[in-house]
């Protein structure tokens, strides 16, 4: 705790992560992007790019995106003497798109992964709602980091440990949409339980519960904490998030019910089995949720006991 420079580095790192998970593509993208029709000529596309100082245009017909024409495609047409061809003949059809509700972290990883200079952004109706370049992201991030640094007044630890004679306490925090680190808390807890000699089947049940609690906080809340208490045979997990709470608790406890969005499902989450799974592996399960304050789940697993419901 004595090293201030190390602590401040940690803060800055967290701030940027928070921002890229919190901000959505639609807040960063250029709305009302210039578009061109697939029936326009290459020469028209060239003129439009030159006049507006852009190096690529989404090709759109009836609000649906059919491709992208870039300055490289145009240079090729100039070389081949095919500038009077329609755009549709030379555009890139196999395009990668982003969705406007995705966090900015997705945008960053797409630029890293695909090496394109721009991505079209689609809305829920799969219509073009904007276009995003890495420059858009940089500008928005710088702006947001400045605001955030002004707001910072406290330091957050991701893990705290305390133990006295057979009693253990650990605390972890989770962050909204931080899929990169989802699973870390449960893996750390699993390894710790193994170290202190908890039986294999108990570890498995605790791991399942902690994993689901952790994913729930990452997917559905604005972040929260997960605490592990061990006292004798009682293993108690307390998961508290900062909201928003669960509107229909009854439904959330039903297998298969999920409010997760489409892109969360593409990550393998949102099966609607989280809370039911947790309940199934626990010896005691309590949940309370307030739409504003958030959700609190407390479960107990007794290390000497077999799980009857499983």
């Amino acid at each position, binding site marked *: 705790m004595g090293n201030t420079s190390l602590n401040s580095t940690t803060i800055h790192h967290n701030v940027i992560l928070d921002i890229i998970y919190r901000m959505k593509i639609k807040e960063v993208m250029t709305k009302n992007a210039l578009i061109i029709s697939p029936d326009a000529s290459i020469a028209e596309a060239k003129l439009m790019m030159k006049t507006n100082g852009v190096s690529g245009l989404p090709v759109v017909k009836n609000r649906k995106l059919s491709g992208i024409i870039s300055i490289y495609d145009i240079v090729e047409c100039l070389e081949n003497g095919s500038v009077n061809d329609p755009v549709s003949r030379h555009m890139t059809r196999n395009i990668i798109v982003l969705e406007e509700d995705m966090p900015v972290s997705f945008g960053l990883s797409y630029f890293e*992964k695909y090496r394109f200079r721009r991505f079209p952004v689609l809305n829920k109706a799969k219509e073009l709602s904007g276009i995003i370049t890495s420059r858009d992201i940089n500008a928005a991030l710088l702006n947001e980091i400045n605001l955030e640094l002004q707001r910072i007044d406290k330091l957050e630890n991701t893990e705290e440990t305390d133990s006295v004679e057979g009693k253990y306490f650990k605390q972890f925090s989770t962050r909204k949409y931080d*899929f*990169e680190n*989802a*699973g*870390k808390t*449960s*893996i750390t807890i*699993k390894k710790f339980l193994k170290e202190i000699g908890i039986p*294999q089947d108990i570890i*498995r049940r605790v*791991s*399942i519960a902690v*994993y*689901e609690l952790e*994913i729930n906080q990452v997917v559905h809340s604005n972040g929260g904490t997960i605490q592990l208490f061990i006292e004798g045979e009682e293993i108690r997990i307390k998961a508290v998030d900062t909201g928003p709470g669960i509107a229909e608790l009854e439904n959330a406890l039903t297998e298969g019910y999920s409010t997760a969005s489409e892109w969360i499902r593409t*990550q*393998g*989450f949102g*099966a609607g*089995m*989280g809370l039911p*799974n947790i309940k*199934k592996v626990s010896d005691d399960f309590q949940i309370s949720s307030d739409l504003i304050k958030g959700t609190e789940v407390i479960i107990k697993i007794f290390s000497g006991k077999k799980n009857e419901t499983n």
Partner: protein
Amino acid sequence: MKLIDLIQKTGYQTVSAGKDDAEIKEGYTGDLLSDVMANSSSDSVLITIQAHKNTIAVATLAGIKAIVICNGRTVPDDMKQSAEVEGIALLSTKKDQFTVSAEIFNLIKA
């Protein structure tokens, strides 16, 4: 069946080697991580198209020793790195989950 034998007999491409002498007793096929978490057995192989780092986290927690990524889906670098750190075998094939499930079932169960 030992992991190394399973790799050799199936001929799937090895992305991360895992532990050669790990015993594979069971298999599970699924893409929803919560479902895999709740229903897979330990000492098992997971057959999936979920080529994502989170799959490694689930495998680690559930005691899954090998993962077969089907349909030739691209394995991201961070997934490969996590698999290496956790000592989980990561295999890749162009075959689909149905075919792979049948092939592995025949090896470990039949």
